[in-house]
């Protein structure tokens, strides 16, 4: 089903044909700050794209946010502060990893819950199942005797 994905991708390539993800002119001089900026960009969504981080995106908006992040980090802001600022401007939508809050409770608990419920179901199913193999019926005994010959009767 990749064609559609490619189609969607094509839609924004069209909008920003001249750009490309992180551009050489964006890169900060300080490698430590740059690494932080890259890590942060990977957690943020490009809001005009289909499910892409701004780190991967070609869109002009993504570039703007990448530059904004570098500016703020260079001014000495923490990752948390930069993230909080972006959320205040764009909402939770910009976070690729949704925050843990009442609305997303079910989402975050899905994996542990299914795991636990599944385990519980297995335990219950085992308990309900008979402990031993049911004894053979007379008919089955007879067939077994036929198959095994004299050995089975001993």
């Amino acid at each position, binding site marked *: *089903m*990749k*064609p*559609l*994905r*490619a*189609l*969607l*991708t*094509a839609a924004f*390539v*069209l909008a920003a*044909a*001249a*750009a*490309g*993800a*992180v*551009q*050489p*002119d964006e*890169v900060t001089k300080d490698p430590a700050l740059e690494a932080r900026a890259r890590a942060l960009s*990977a*957690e943020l*969504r490009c809001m005009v794209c*289909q*499910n*892409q*981080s701004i780190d*991967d995106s070609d869109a002009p908006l993504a570039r703007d946010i990448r530059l904004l992040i570098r500016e703020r980090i260079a001014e000495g802001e923490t990752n948390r502060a930069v993230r909080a600022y972006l959320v205040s401007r764009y*909402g*939770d*939508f*910009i*976070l*690729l*990893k*949704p925050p843990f809050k009442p*609305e*997303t409770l*079910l*989402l*975050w608990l*899905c*994996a542990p819950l*299914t*795991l636990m419920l*599944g*385990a519980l179901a*297995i335990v219950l199913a*085992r308990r309900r*199942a*008979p402990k*031993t*193999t049911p004894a053979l019926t007379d008919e089955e005994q007879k067939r077994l005797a036929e198959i095994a010959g004299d050995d089975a009767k001993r």
Partner: protein
Amino acid sequence: MTVEIGHFALILALTLALVQTVVPFVGARRGDPALMGVGAAAAMAQFVFVAVAFAALARAHLTSDFSVVNVAENSHSALPAIYKFSGVWGNHEGSMLLWVLILSAFGALAAAFGRGLPARLGADALAAQGLIGAAFLAFILFTSNPFERLWPAPFEGGDLNPVLQDPGLAIHPPLLYLGYVGFSIVFSFAAAALIEGRVDAAWARFARPFALVAWCFLTLGVAMGSYWAYYTLGWGGFWFWDPVENASLMPWLAGTAFIHSAAVTEKRDALKVWTIFLAIVAFSFSLIGAFLVRSGVLTSVHAFASDPRRGVFILAILAFFIAGSLALFAWRAPPLKQGGLFAPISREGALALNNLLLTSACATVLFGTLYPLALEQISGEKITVGAPFFNATAGLLMLAACFFTPFGFSLAWKRGDLLGVAQRLAAAIAGGFVVLVALIAVFRGGPVLAPIAAGLAAFVMLGALSEVVARVWRRGVSFAAARARGLPLSFWGGAAAHFGVGVTLLGLAGVGFGAETIATMKVGEAQKVGPYTVVLETVGARNGPNYRDAVAAMTIRSGGEFVAAIEPARRQFSARETTTTQAGIATLDFGQVYVSIGDPAADGAVPARLYWKPLATLIWLGACVMALGGLLSLADRRLRFGAPARAKAPAAAAGAGARPQ
């Protein structure tokens, strides 16, 4: 004219699908062999007519018949022939036709190979398959007709989307659809078994080959899609947890779980109800995937609402088959007799654990994919569920499944000996630890997760190998060759598939040790990336059949020595005025140097991103090894249809040759 023939053939196929649904089903209820026999003939005829329809559309595309809307919108006279052909399914209508073609092909296959089946089971399965076919044929005819005409016909077509003008389009969708749709047969078998009220080892033996075929294709299809995205999208990512990718991953997870649980049903007559449930779930996920991708609901809820005809139709198909099969399951499954007792520590127990982890991962992917849609509908709040979420949840569950793989593969049926297995796996465990510690020591302060994944990968691969060694070496070297021949192919298949899991995992781990350089390069300039140096030699232009490339010729050197040449490019398509990125990729051992460029500036400077991706090819090679494992299992004589009946002659001919266990 051929276009109209195609249209009529499709209508006939729908009629035949309805016949295939009703007649064998009635026949099975009345016990009438003549009526039941109609199913096989109808299934084969349906396939023939769908094939005629597909050929008609393919001809229209190949001859650039722009009086057909579908061709006018999605093709161009200057396209190379291969893209004219693959363009048949590079659009909504055509891809649905491909879907139905494969669906009817599987139906015909089941009809041809299903002669050894119990008559009623076969008739009911074909009836179920016919119903699925009828639903999708109706969908095409009523909402997505690829044969619609256009008058007056334009002189030139709108062109195939440039991103799709790639060999990937020729290979990826057919593979993926073979996988998706292959599970329909398993689904139909499950429905038939529920109607019959009987599930046994024989049923599992009939269903498993189809599941294996579907699984092999799906594995290759997902891997192929990932590689296509990797080389075509230009930033070196290979998996994005995109909803469309998730739509293909979910049936794969459910299908993998099914293959394992069907093995338990076949060998030990246990987990029957669960196996049936998984058969339903695997195809349901294929349907959900079709809905997610084809309805447009993903692009935006509003796009879906503005033209809801297709979306609602697919949703109706989805709801009918999923709700219908689950209702049938709820009604008919409880009386199924459970058999085959086993201790918690046993092959069966391990497979149950495998199923628990895989289905939990599957549920998590489903939840994560649909949650933003649901939340927006309920509270209007927009959130994003992206890669970091899936890696932390579903990714973790899949890693856990990998960890238990060697244990499950080495445990005995019914009652296993965990201590014995641990001893047997001692070398593999030690190997995994050595890799882990060595990597941490060498890359001190480097990535954290990657060494763990690499260690786990080593453990999984060595675990598969040590099980092979344990089986083959049991009686010393002199017997090894004979024992190796004597082991059933399905064992070799399992070993290969599990080894492949380790290979893919190693490739994923390798990503963590990669390097990246972003720079504006002038001609003659060199940039280091990982252990290599990349030199920009020349910048030039080149004309293709329907595009123009701005090419940057680069050489890759190691210690001054020439290693490889690459030509990353920006490709400009004139018909749609679009530009795509053509990455320059050189495969060096199992790693790759990956370079993508931006538009060259007037002074000849090229903005470039250079990546060194150690072991990257293993990600996809591992999937190929997994598929090979599936193929080996499929070739196992015990799984072949009618094999028991025909086995006597070859066995006698082989004389006292090695017999499978």
